[in-house]
């Protein structure tokens, strides 16, 4: 067996036998994907609930077709007593209550959530208007044709899968290189390798190879899970461009791991430092939620984080149908980042703990 294969094998065995490393780099991010993916199944805003008290003509006479259309946005619950229904709205269990009184429609809503209140009021106004127009027996003068632009609408899984994958790759690559550096320095494997007739390129090549293998395994598992019908991730044309992007991202985060490994004196300290660096970066880079609503200064911070660019580019090629034009600048930027950080890490590199 060649030195390269043998070293790669030793590092792979070390990784898969390290339960905490497997948990940290694979199981933990997958748990997030499974959980978030299930929690955010609906498109952010959930349906509004309206309680109907007694008979309400406009709702009761609605055609089955129209009811089905509305059911995406509105759930109607029927009840006999107004008092408890109003209590439900005040308590936040329902969004509005509707009833008929002396031939007039009455609607009461809670303004606790203004956006929700607006949706409910608007929805019921449109139902009433439609009923009014129908009552005239005339065809409506203006008609609105509506349709959905499926590609533009961001389903949560479409940013969750690339974002959580970016976080997993970042954690895995930086942790593994920091761990190897600290562990080999502490156990004097670095020194021992210096005294074996093996070239530094072979050792570094094996480490890079195993880290890329881990990153590709993470990608394969994430995509396999996210594309099951339950989560419903749909891959677009050039999705495979995510592979070179993930590879460049893994290199960038390996270089961060080298920097952490040069500083840390124990595997535990290296793990802690990696988390301190990567976790806030993941939050600011949109790994867990979109960053569009962040205040300007936070967006400026996230603008210098490599993970943000990795996440965005992977999302672009994976789910937005973009190609090389989205992947290349990011890949180049990540490689440049790798070169700079590795050069810094080489300057602070230590052979020994003392």
């Amino acid at each position, binding site marked *: *067996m*060649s*030195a390269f*294969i*043998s*070293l790669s*094998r*030793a*590092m792979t*065995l*070390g990784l898969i*036998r*390290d339960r905490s490393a497997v948990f940290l780099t694979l199981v933990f991010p997958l748990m997030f994907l499974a959980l978030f993916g299930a929690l955010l199944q609906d498109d952010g805003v959930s349906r509004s609930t309206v309680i109907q008290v007694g008979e309400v003509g406009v709702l009761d006479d609605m055609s089955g077709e129209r009811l089905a259309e509305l059911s995406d946005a509105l759930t109607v619950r029927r009840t006999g007593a107004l008092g408890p229904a109003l209590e439900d709205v005040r308590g936040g269990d329902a969004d509005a209550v509707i009833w008929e009184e002396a031939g007039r429609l009455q609607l009461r809503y809670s303004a606790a959530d203004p956006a929700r209140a607006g949706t409910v009021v608007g929805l019921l106004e449109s139902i009433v208007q439609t009923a009014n127009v129908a009552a005239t027996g005339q065809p409506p003068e203006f008609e609105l044709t509506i349709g959905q632009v499926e590609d533009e609408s961001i389903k949560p899984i479409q940013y969750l899968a690339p974002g959580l994958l970016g976080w997993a790759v970042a954690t895995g690559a930086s942790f593994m290189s920091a761990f190897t550096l600290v*562990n080999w320095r502490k*156990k*004097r*494997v670095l*020194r*021992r*390798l*210096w*005294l*074996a*007739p*093996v*070239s530094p390129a072979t050792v570094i090549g094996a480490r890079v190879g195993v880290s890329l293998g881990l990153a590709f395994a993470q990608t394969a598992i994430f995509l396999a899970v996210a594309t099951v019908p339950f989560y419903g991730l749909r891959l677009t044309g050039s999705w495979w461009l995510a592979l070179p992007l993930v590879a460049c991202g893994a290199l960038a985060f390996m270089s961060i791991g080298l920097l952490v490994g040069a500083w840390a004196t124990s595997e535990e300290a290296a793990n802690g430092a990696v988390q301190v660096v990567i976790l806030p970066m993941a939050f600011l880079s949109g790994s867990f939620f979109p960053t569009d609503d962040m205040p300007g200064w936070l967006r400026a911070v996230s603008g210098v984080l490599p993970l943000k660019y990795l996440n965005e580019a992977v999302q672009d090629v994976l789910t937005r149908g973009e190609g090389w034009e989205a992947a290349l600048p990011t890949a180049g930027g990540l490689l440049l980042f790798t070169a700079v950080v590795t050069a810094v890490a080489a300057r602070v590199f230590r052979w020994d703990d003392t």
Partner: protein
Amino acid sequence: MSDTGAAIAVEGLRKRYGDVQAVDGVTFEVGRGEFYGILGPNGAGKTTTLELVEGLREPDEGTARLLGRPSWPRDPALLARIGVQLQTSAFFDKLTAREQIRTFAALYGVPAARADAMLGTVGLTDKAHVRDDKLSGGQAQRLSLACALVHDPELVFLDEPTTGLDPQARRNLWDLLREINAAGRTIVLTTHYLDEAELLCDRVAIMDAGRVLRVGAPAALIRELGVATLEDVFLRLTGREYRG
């Protein structure tokens, strides 16, 4: 300077760490097939001397030639001919004894079958599937020695190979070292156990404060100084007999 010369020729080695002159002008020669000991109290500079000779660190001054070739700068062709056991057992994380030695064997281009045979030589065949952190101190030392010897080196460096072992494990390891030496390899070891040096070494160099104080065969040094044991020689030379 062909292969007929000395196994090791060290001249005027010096190394300073900050304010500490760890090695202060060390010169010695080791012949082929010799069993050579470097003795000294803790902090005498034994390990640093060994590391300079092996080519693990760059000397501030002086040269070390192994098998006729300078050990610094790093020379992979030379490294293939020497075997090294560091003071700490340098093992890969979470690998079994067999996986450790096979990995080291591959670094030297040695087939796995030879690695397994070496595991048998140090009596660890029944521990082949045990991970390094589950081995006893003596077993870990024997594995470490096996990893140093797996490529059949001409010259072997051992840094305090018996430190921390119980008496049985030490004797066990001594027998192993004598066999290796009898097979024609040159062995250099550092130790602070004088009985060990007296028993194993053809010649010893006694060091203190970064210098070599005296070199000679244990018996000759004992005779020369008119004392009973190598320990007396050591105490006489290092001037520590009256210290607390």
